[in-house]
Each structure stands twice: as C-alpha cells, then as structure tokens.
C-alpha cells in the first residue's frame, strides 16, 4: 500500500497543509508513506517531513523547479509514480497543488477526487469523504484504478510530529518542452506580518457590518491579541476595504482554523463554504436573524464596534496576567 504525499513549500518551510496530509497518510496505517519535495535547494526540507512520519522522502532538486509552477512538477511526479508503482498520491489543496494534481491525472489517466475533507479505508478500499453542493450533502467517492489521486480541502488535517528519520532518494528531473515554456518573471514575496491565513490557528474576519474600511483596525487588533490572522468576506474585498488575499469563501480561501471569529458577517453561502469546517466559530452580528448564527458555536447579537474592542482588551489582559 504505497502512498506518496506532495510536499509543497514556501521559503524554507514545508506548508502546514502538506504536513497535515502527510500525518493523515501515516494515520491510515500505511507502513510505506513517502513524501516528495520539489524545488531548488530543497534537500533540507526532507527533515521536516521525517518529523511528521515520512519514512522516505524523494527529492527533486533542480533549478528548473525553483519557481512554483505546476507543469515541471507533473513531469517529475509522473515518472516517479510509474517507476515506483505508487498506488495513492495525496495533495493538500493550493493553487499550485490543484494544477499539479489535475495535470497528473490526465498524464497518468488516473482518477482525481478533489475537495476531500477526509480519506478512510472501508472494506479494503479507500473512500474519500467529500462535502458537496455548499456542504448540503456528503458524498463518498472512490477510485476505479491506480494510481488514485486525492486533493484535500485546505486545513483538513493538522500535522502530527511523531519524530523519526527518513531515507532520502534523489529522483530524475527530465522535463517536457511544453512544461518549461511558462516562465516565472517575478515570484510573490512574503506578505506582511502574522501567519498566512490558510495556516493560521486563529482567524478573525470582518464583513460589511464593520461599516467601513477604517473599522478593520478593530479586527486587526483582536487578531493580533489572539496571535491570529485577519480574514475578510467577498463583499468587503469587492468594496476595496481589504485585500483579496484575505478573502475567505467560495472564491477565496477555504480555511479551518481552531477558532474563527466572524465580526459583522452575515454568513452568506459564499462565505460559509470557506470557513464552516473551523473548529470553533464565534459570530458577532447585530442582526439576530443573520444566517451565520445557524452554524456558530457561540453567537452574540450585538454591535461589533462595542464588543470587539472590549474583547481585545480582555484577551490582552488575560495574556498579560
């Protein structure tokens, strides 16, 4: 039962989402879980994967893999999967991972199930758990052949450090011409401070109920006090109050932090699908009929302008004590 996990990195770190998927693979009981890191100067990343239970890490280290573009990665993976006879390939969702997984599916004529929230073994077969149609129905999906390719929703699994070491093995990097014809001119630089929204354990998000862009400082201050990241709804991003990169929802990021605090957010379906798998959801909204209350653990009917700053002070006081 060989499993391979696509380990995506940014800077010197493997993404938490990738490591979470790796931990999931280990938890499935496979004795043969391998990871693959691809990039330039990425050899040291293997150690991070070993800590989360990979017994083997394939390393594709090549200048042509430095930019986070999908097609060269498809070339490397397709060859590796064929050579090693890998049966199951797992990806944590991202813009890059989705493109790699889909290209690989076509290359290998392999089944790809996406947007999975979980993967289990039932009656000796793998079953993917997929909440669909705005999570109104849960679908059990499977694969008719190998290799199976699974793409998980962001934040489906937390990384679990089990310790240990991994063998590393260099893999051949032979690229197709068309795979290298797209070229990175300028790669995105690190964004500001604080954890990135998809990796954040705590997200404080603001919506139209804040009243104006200047009131986002309330959200930012609470996020800072809790050591979390700031999220925003489609409505306020569209209105230019906050950058698109913070948008949570159907056309933004899908997140599942341990704590999600929604400030002045009504909870439209567009937003709900991006955050409803959060561990604990707290909502503050002055409209008692806001849909957000239907899927909150704690709903507060109140004015965000009063409740949020008070909460920030209380959190600071508690942490200071």
């Amino acid at each position, binding site marked *: 039962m060989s499993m391979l996990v696509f380990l995506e990195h940014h800077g010197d770190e493997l993404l938490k989402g990738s490591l979470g998927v790796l931990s999931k693979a280990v938890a499935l009981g496979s004795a043969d879980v391998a990871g693959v890191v691809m990039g330039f100067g990425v050899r040291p990343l293997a150690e991070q994967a070993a800590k989360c239970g990979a017994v083997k890490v394939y390393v594709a280290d090549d200048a042509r893999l430095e930019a986070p573009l999908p097609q060269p990665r498809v070339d490397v993976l397709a060859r590796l999967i064929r050579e090693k006879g890998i049966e199951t390939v797992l990806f944590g969702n991202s813009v890059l991972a989705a493109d790699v997984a889909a290209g690989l599916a076509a290359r290998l004529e392999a089944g790809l199930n996406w947007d999975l929230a979980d993967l289990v073994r039932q009656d000796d077969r793998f079953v993917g758990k997929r909440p*669909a149609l705005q999570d109104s129905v849960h679908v059990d999906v499977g694969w008719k052949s190998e290799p199976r390719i699974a793409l998980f929703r962001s934040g489906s699994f937390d990384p679990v450090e089990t310790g240990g070491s991994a063998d590393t093995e260099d893999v051949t990097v032979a690229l197709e011409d*068309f795979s290298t014809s797209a070229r990175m001119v300028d790669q995105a630089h690190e964004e500001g401070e604080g954890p990135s929204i998809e990796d954040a354990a705590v997200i404080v998000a603001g919506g139209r109920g804040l009243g104006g862009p200047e009131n986002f400082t309330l959200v930012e201050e609470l996020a800072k006090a809790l050591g979390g990241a700031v999220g925003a709804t489609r409505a306020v991003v569209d209105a230019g109050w906050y950058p698109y990169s913070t948008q949570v929802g159907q056309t933004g990021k899908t997140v599942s932090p341990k704590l999600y605090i929604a400030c002045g957010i009504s909870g439209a379906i567009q937003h709900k699908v991006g955050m409803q798998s959060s561990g604990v959801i707290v909502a*503050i909204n002055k409209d008692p009929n806001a849909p957000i*209350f239907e899927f909150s653990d704690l*709903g507060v009917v109140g004015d965000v302008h009063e409740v949020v700053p*008070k909460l920030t002070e209380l959190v600071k006081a508690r942490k200071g004590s």
Partner: protein
Amino acid sequence: MKIAVCVKQVPEGNSRIDPGTKRLDRSGAGALNGFDANAVEEALRLRDATGEGEVVLVSLGPAKAQDVLRKTLAMGADRAVHVSDETAGGSDLVATSYALAKALEREGADLILFGQQAADSDGAVLWAAVADRLRLPVVSQAAELTHAGGKLTIKRQTEFGYDLIEAPLPAVVAVSDAINEPRYPSLKGIMGAKSKPQETLSLAELEIEPERAGEPGSRTEVYALSDPPARADSRKIDDDGNAAQAILDFLAEKRLV
C-alpha cells in the same frame, strides 16, 4: 488571435444530487457557470483591443446547454461548439478533459480560457488536465492578462500574493473572478446571437471511443450520499454589555486563549 473559451452549463439555483444515479440532477433550468462569464469577458476584451480575431465558445454538456450557449453568444462571442452526447454523462476529470481536449484540438485556438471553477462541482482542475493533454503551457488564477508580441503576461494570485508569469502562445489560462466585471448582453447582442453559428458535435465526430467517455471512461466513482452532520450545542446570547466577557469565558472553556 483566435480564442476558445470553455464554458459550462450548471443547474440554476440550488443544485441537488439524484440519489438514484448519484449524479448531479441536471433536469431543471440551466445557467452559465458564473465564473465562466469572466473568461468570456476577458476573451472579448482581448479580441476587441486589436479589433481582430475570433472568440469561440466550447462546451461539453447535455442538449439543453444550447440555450446557455446562445445566451453566452449574446455577450459578443462569435460562434459556439457544443459537444453533446448521451454517453458523455457521468464523465469525471479524466473523461471530460479527454473529450474537451479533442474538441479544442480541432479548433487550434491561440488561447484557451477557463473560468476559475465550476459552481456545481466546485472543481478547479479541468484546465490543467486539458493543458497536459494538449501539451500546452497553463497558468491558473489569472488576475490580470495582457497579450503582446505572441506572448502572454499573467498576474497570478496565489496564497502568497501575486506572481508575474510569462507564457508563449498557444496557451491555456484560467482567469479568476477578480479579473474583470462581465458585461450583460445588449438587446442587439441578444438578437444577433440567434444567427451566430452554433455547431453540435457527437463524440464519434470527435473520434472519441465510447469506452473513453462517461462512466466507462472515468476513473472515479460515487459510492454513497448522506446528510451532513449537524453542529453540536450552539449557543446564542444578546449583548447586555457583558458579551465580550462571555466570549472570553467561552474561549477559555474551549482552551482557545
């Protein structure tokens, strides 16, 4: 420049899955996948910037997708190619990308555009599979797209910010819904759409073997459907001036502070 835009008909309003076939129920009214409108808009802008070229809609779907194609032609596209075949129903990514690539191969467009996801299946994967079959470069999540000298410059939005990527034509690009504001069809456009060429092709006409389409051509399957679990013990309080303290106590109880 010849631009092919891949568009999908999705069920209008709330979708449901047919418990019998375990497929999406497509019996009701159809609408253009909203995200595809951004791809159509971008194609029209690119064509109109130079005043030459052609925008072709390419769609795979049931017979009634014709209506959606006509409505989309009304936005200003030049013609439509509709791949429609009963045996294509239930196609997964492998089968869909194969059929679509065959239709696109026949068109030989300089640029192939997609919207950022399918609103019904939440899939955001088709372009990369199609590009691999066509052996063309692919860039997704394009927030800006410019064309000069046979080359595309794309601002790609990822989880880390914006990348700037160049790709030669022909290429496949999936645009984000932040790239533009799609136009509404004008009355003239709606009237004109009726006389625009709409071609319907069967899988056989695209030389697609039946075993590569529909469920036989798919590598994934659906086992079962179930209701999602309800959220346990949710609480709702009115702010009487102490709500902030109540939230803090709640977070402390959950060990979140």
